[in-house]
């Protein structure tokens, strides 16, 4: 198992090289001059030229990329063009917001989605099931910004119960987390339901019933243990995605998270920040995936046997 984890972490290296190369290429090909963006329209030709020289933007592509990798290996991923702060620090300032937002909304999605899915499945075609499936459909198709604005209008403007921006108090975290969770709740509910429906038809569930086991134990112990396995994958992927920053939610609720940082960086052609950000997201995503795989092995002994 430990060997497996080590190997998976070593796999990160080629992933990072690949990701950084692709991002570097894309940025290189993107129109727009960072010097102009950073220095503003009023800047003199000379100032622009000086900036480009200093940042090595006139060098050939491969030289630029080589220099980036060379420094990155030593732990230096550059400074933001805009703030002149180290990229690592910029990301680390934004990341806690993103993690909190992702954690909270995933928590909501799990705490609501899994029980909803289970009840929907064991009461298939009931009123509850129909209502849940309609909600899930609405949740999936409702644009995030629209839901966010609706929630702000109702809970912040109309009722004045919850703040509409910021992310430092529990009260302030509720609306953004719910907004972001809406889709995940819908996805987790549907996944749990279909997985559960699949599992309760299996022969081994019938075997448990034939033992004379109580229906509640049949469902919560035997069926759920099996039905959760695919749900874990979905939750993991969702969480990984959320770690990349929820641009829309962060913008609506003015949360200074990774999503907003990245969008601003892209707008301003802040190359080092974009590159650093993408690398960081790639690492976070890979680690979450590894975690999901480990959880998977813990839930399913058949998979554990394959992890060598």
């Amino acid at each position, binding site marked *: 198992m430990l060997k497996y984890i080590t190997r998976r972490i070593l796999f990160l290296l080629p992933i990072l090289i690949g990701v950084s190369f692709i991002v570097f290429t894309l940025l290189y090909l993107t129109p727009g001059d960072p010097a102009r963006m950073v220095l503003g329209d009023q800047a003199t030709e000379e100032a622009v030229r000086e900036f480009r020289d200093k940042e090595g933007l006139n060098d050939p592509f491969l030289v630029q990329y080589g220099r980036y990798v060379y420094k990155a290996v030593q732990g230096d991923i550059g400074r933001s063009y805009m703030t002149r702060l180290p990229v690592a620090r910029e990301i680390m300032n934004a990341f806690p917001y993103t993690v909190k937002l992702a954690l909270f909304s995933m928590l909501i999605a799990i705490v609501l989605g899994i029980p909803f899915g289970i009840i929907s499945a064991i009461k298939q075609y009931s009123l509850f099931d129909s209502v849940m499936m309609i909600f899930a459909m609405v949740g999936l198709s409702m644009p995030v910004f629209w839901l966010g604005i609706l929630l702000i209008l109702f809970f912040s403007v109309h009722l004045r119960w919850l703040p509409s921006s910021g992310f430092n108090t529990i009260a302030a975290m509720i609306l953004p987390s719910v907004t972001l969770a809406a889709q995940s709740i819908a996805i987790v509910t549907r996944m749990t339901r279909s997985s559960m429906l699949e599992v309760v038809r299996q*022969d*081994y569930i019938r075997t448990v019933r034939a033992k004379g086991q109580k229906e509640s134990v049949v469902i919560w112990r*035997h069926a759920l243990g099996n039905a959760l396995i695919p749900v874990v994958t979905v939750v993991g992927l969702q969480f990984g995605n959320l770690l990349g920053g929820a641009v829309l939610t962060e913008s609506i609720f003015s949360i200074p998270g990774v999503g907003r940082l990245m969008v601003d960086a892209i707008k301003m052609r802040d190359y080092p920040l974009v590159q650093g950000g993408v690398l960081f997201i790639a690492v976070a995503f890979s680690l979450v995936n590894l975690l999901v795989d480990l959880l998977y092995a813990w839930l399913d002994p058949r998979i554990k046997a394959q992890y060598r």
Partner: protein
Amino acid sequence: MEDRKLILDIQDLSIQYRVEGGTVHAVENLNLALGYGENLGFVGETGAGKTTTALGIMRLVPDPPGRITSGRILFEGADLLRKTEDEMRSIRGGKIAMIFQDPMTSLNPVMTVDKQIAEMVLLHNDVTERQALDRAVEMLELVGIRSERARDYPHQFSGGMKQRVVIAIALACNPILLIADEPTTALDVTIQAQVLELMRELRRKINTSLVMITHDLGIVAEMCDKVAIMYAGRVVEYATTEALYNRPVHPYTEGLFNSIPDIDRDEEELKVIQGLMPDPTNLPSGCPFHPRCPYAVESCSREAPGMVEIEPGHLVACPVRTEHRLNSVGWKGGAGR
């Protein structure tokens, strides 16, 4: 029917599955009886309704789509269909146990096998978890699996071993009625023989009554005292093994025996039964076998045949083949209808 104490007496049982495009009459007015300590072979081609009947006895017919629409299942004299779910739970596993058809999928993949056996023990005995696990290991050894393997997961076992685990679960609480649904179909011949021997041995030890569901007339001859032949949801012939093998009466039974390859007779071709099993959502009128029956007469397509007792304990649902015997024995009402 002769006076013997019945452990199981199924009367006019009908079970249906509602599916798209119609209703499957999986079991239709089925009558069946089993005495204490008896071995009944339950034979019929695929889709005849054998598993459905067994699930009916356990009250485990999946609903939806299935439903028991009529009949009585008397177990030790009391109708199982009138029991509450709680009463059924203590009967399932405790008094009636079932060995399921497909061992590959019958075990929970995320639970070690000792726990799966212990669960059964815990449900029907007043023991601690520790004692239940000990009993599980005992059961595993009884079915020939070494105790070191007790903490393994099902995927670490071969098909034959899984079948043994399934048997160990079924036998863990000494049921008085055991329903074995093709317990050997999934196994190769040598393991098959071992499993049968095992079941015989266990039967000797705890004197269980057995319903053995199978396609295999050879196994029936070896294991069973009584045989019921099922066709399209009905029992068409019921007799002692000895009577049935020597004097098969129903044309379908006859067809079954003729389709067994016989090394002594060297015939070019097997006499297989003509035609196919009828569409279960749209059974032929009258006797469901009449379209395939070489003896069919015009009235067969009109009247559903009742069971006739042609000699003590030998019942047949075929007026054509039993007509000439009627004078000597007479119609027996009640037993079939």
